[in-house]
């Protein structure tokens, strides 16, 4: 497949940029943060986004989606990164819809994907338990109990937890932490008895929470996919999530870089524009080259999702590792090259470094993904 955007994709990218810049940009994120908004996004803005069909962008048309594929979602996520858009695209669309589609039965897909595509249903993944992404280490227990299951344990880093009506909880039904076999995905409604949803506050000021499950009872038909057999669908969904987050990081890094280059052309010291100093020029030029490499890798990985490429896992970790590295460098340089003003809360560049680090951490940071990239490459 040619590594180039079609005209239709360029149009999607431009309409996403327009809407997010106007309604879900840094100014809106700042306002939500200052208001200490528990949800972390504005429901009316989400309705506008649903009106564009984006919640269903990667959902097949037969389930009420646009059937536009993951290249389309990647383009929207890149724009959401550029504008630091406080919208539940990562939770509901990248993770929720993908998991339902990968693991759900026909009946579950019929029941859930259409309302999700319409923007009426929020579904999010509850996976991480410790300080780091380690899906095989899942310990949260699900025991068979009569006709259903009883779940005990806790989860953290649940994106948009306070907005979710349903959680996809990954639980251990057999085996030991460390085994990829023995994991089962459960659909747990937010109002289930024994479930506590606690709001958490991370540096990026986005909606996030932790779950405590004390003997939460779910029926047998709450299982998504096969008992003990969530791994294949979960693993593919996570590969997709890694790439989606890489696309978001591409947007964050590119925007932080462009704002920084803009500042280099304005700020004067020693009677000269600081962008005329070669020490800064070379750092900017190196970063530009890294961003161009990043863009190619993200596009190649997005295409691998839609093409069902067997290289998907290695490309997913390659894209996430590279974008963690480059977004970290771009946002660090962003602060340094802005100088003192970059350290102030009043100036926007700080929002980029904060969101970048959370997106880098989510579902595996540089260390996790470079290690996985090497392992999948045979060393």
């Amino acid at each position, binding site marked *: 497949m*040619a*590594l*180039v955007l079609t005209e239709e994709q360029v149009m999607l990218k431009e309409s996403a940029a327009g809407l997010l810049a106007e309604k879900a940009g840094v100014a809106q994120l700042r306002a939500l943060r200052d208001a200490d908004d528990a949800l972390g996004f504005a429901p009316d803005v989400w309705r506008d986004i649903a009106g564009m069909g984006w919640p269903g962008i990667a959902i097949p048309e037969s389930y009420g989606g646009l059937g536009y594929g993951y290249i389309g979602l990647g383009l929207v996520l890149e724009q959401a990164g550029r504008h630091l858009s406080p919208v539940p695209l990562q939770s509901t669309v990248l993770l929720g819809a993908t998991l339902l589609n990968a693991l759900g039965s026909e009946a579950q897909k019929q029941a859930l994907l259409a309302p999700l595509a319409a923007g009426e249903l929020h579904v999010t993944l509850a996976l991480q338990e410790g300080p780091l992404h380690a899906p095989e280490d899942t310990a949260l227990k699900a025991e068979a109990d009569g006709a259903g299951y009883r779940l005990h344990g806790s989860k953290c880093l649940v994106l948009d937890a306070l907005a979710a009506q349903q959680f996809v909880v990954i639980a251990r039904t057999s085996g030991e932490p460390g085994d990829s076999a023995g994991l089962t995905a459960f659909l747990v409604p937010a109002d289930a008895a024994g479930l506590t949803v606690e709001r958490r506050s991370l540096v990026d000021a986005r909606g996030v929470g932790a779950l405590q499950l004390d003997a939460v009872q779910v029926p047998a038909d709450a299982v998504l996919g096969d008992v003990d057999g969530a791994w294949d669908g979960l693993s593919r969904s996570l590969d997709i999530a890694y790439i989606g987050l890489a696309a978001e990081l591409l947007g964050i890094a590119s925007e932080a870089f462009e704002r920084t*280059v803009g500042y*280099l*052309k304005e700020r004067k010291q020693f009677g000269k*524009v600081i*962008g*005329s100093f*070669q020490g*800064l*020029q*070379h750092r*900017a*030029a*190196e970063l*530009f*080259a890294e961003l*161009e*490499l*990043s*863009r*190619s*890798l993200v*596009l*190649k990985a997005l295409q691998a999702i839609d093409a069902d490429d067997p290289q998907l896992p290695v490309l997913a970790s*390659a894209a996430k*590792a*590279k974008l963690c590295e480059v977004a970290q460098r771009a946002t660090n340089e962003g602060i340094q090259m802005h100088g003192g003003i970059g350290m102030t809360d009043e100036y926007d560049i700080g929002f980029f470094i904060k969101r970048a680090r959370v997106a880098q951490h989510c579902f595996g940071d540089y260390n996790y993904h*470079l*290690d996985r*990239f*090497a*392992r999948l*490459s*045979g*060393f």
Partner: protein
Amino acid sequence: MSDLEKFRADTRAWLEENCPPAMREPVRGFDDLYMGGRNPEVDHPDQQVWCQRMAERGWTVPHWPREYGGGGLNKEEAKILQQEMARIGARRPLESFGISMLGPALLKFGTEAQKQEHLPPICRGEIRWCQGYSEPNAGSDLASLQTRAEDRGDHYLINGQKVWTSYADKADWIFCLVRTDNSGSKHEGISFVLFDMASEGVTTRPIKLISGSSPFCETFFDNVRAEKRNLVGEEGKGWAIAKYLLTHEREMISGFGTAPKKSLGSVAVETYGADASGRLRNGILRHTIAQYQLDALAFGATMSRVGDEAKAGQGLGAASSIFKYYGTELNKRRNELNLAIGGEPALGWDGDVYEGGATSRDWLRSKGNSIEGGTSEVQLNIIAKRVLGLPD
């Protein structure tokens, strides 16, 4: 049968008939390429047979126009020829700076008479060219070159010195940057001239590099005569031609950065072994290799993307500078890893036990990649100024 299908069938039959078996063997190294010229270096007599047969059809340079000795093939036909050659493992019949560098510049800037005179001998492999660009005091700052060309009516009289002239001791003609005027800015007053290396007053001296013997030479001009009909473009306007030609050179050098077939990680596992989870035993080395392989993958994807975007009429500004910078830096990283993974044998300099020191010599030679054809620092200047618009 469509025209293209017929072309493929005819090409296949002709290649089968005419490509000598020895020319279907893989090239053993740089020295094994056939570069033509008045006194060609011939490792195998079939090199000349193959070159001559291909040249008769214009297929030494398939995409150049027929009237200048090329094949006049369109893109589809050239691709079919390439595929059919690859099918039987046929070597390219001729490699030369005439094809890769001078030719494109002459096609764009040369007069009809110049194209008629110089392109057909390039296609036939009769004249081998070298490039007279760098001087002892004009490296990265190429435009400050001082080789003088004095106007003597129907010809120029050339005096000065060039350096890093690849294969000057083997070339028949030179395309050379000379200064015809000193009065304006340094970019003005440069002219692009062609002359015979057998002319009186030309001497060459090979340069030995840190990696051992090399194709590079120092070249001296002492009252050398260059005919005015061999001035390409206008007098004093040679810089534009020089830059056009440099973009071709950069793309050629950046190609060195693409990943080799066998991954460094798997080579390292063979040497160092792996732990129970399959990870290379030395975690520090593993990290460095993984970083290299990640960047090599991203670099390869970028080469493809820029190619695809160019076909779709989009373009990345200063692509050749990004490639030159990143590709050569990657190649240096790969060579450092070759040393690290190889250990003692990789440091061998001579003798069969060390394969003649191939690893260490390649490693040393790679240091020049980020210097020749414009240093990495110059590429970064170009990106900063032309792409990012940062001021002087």
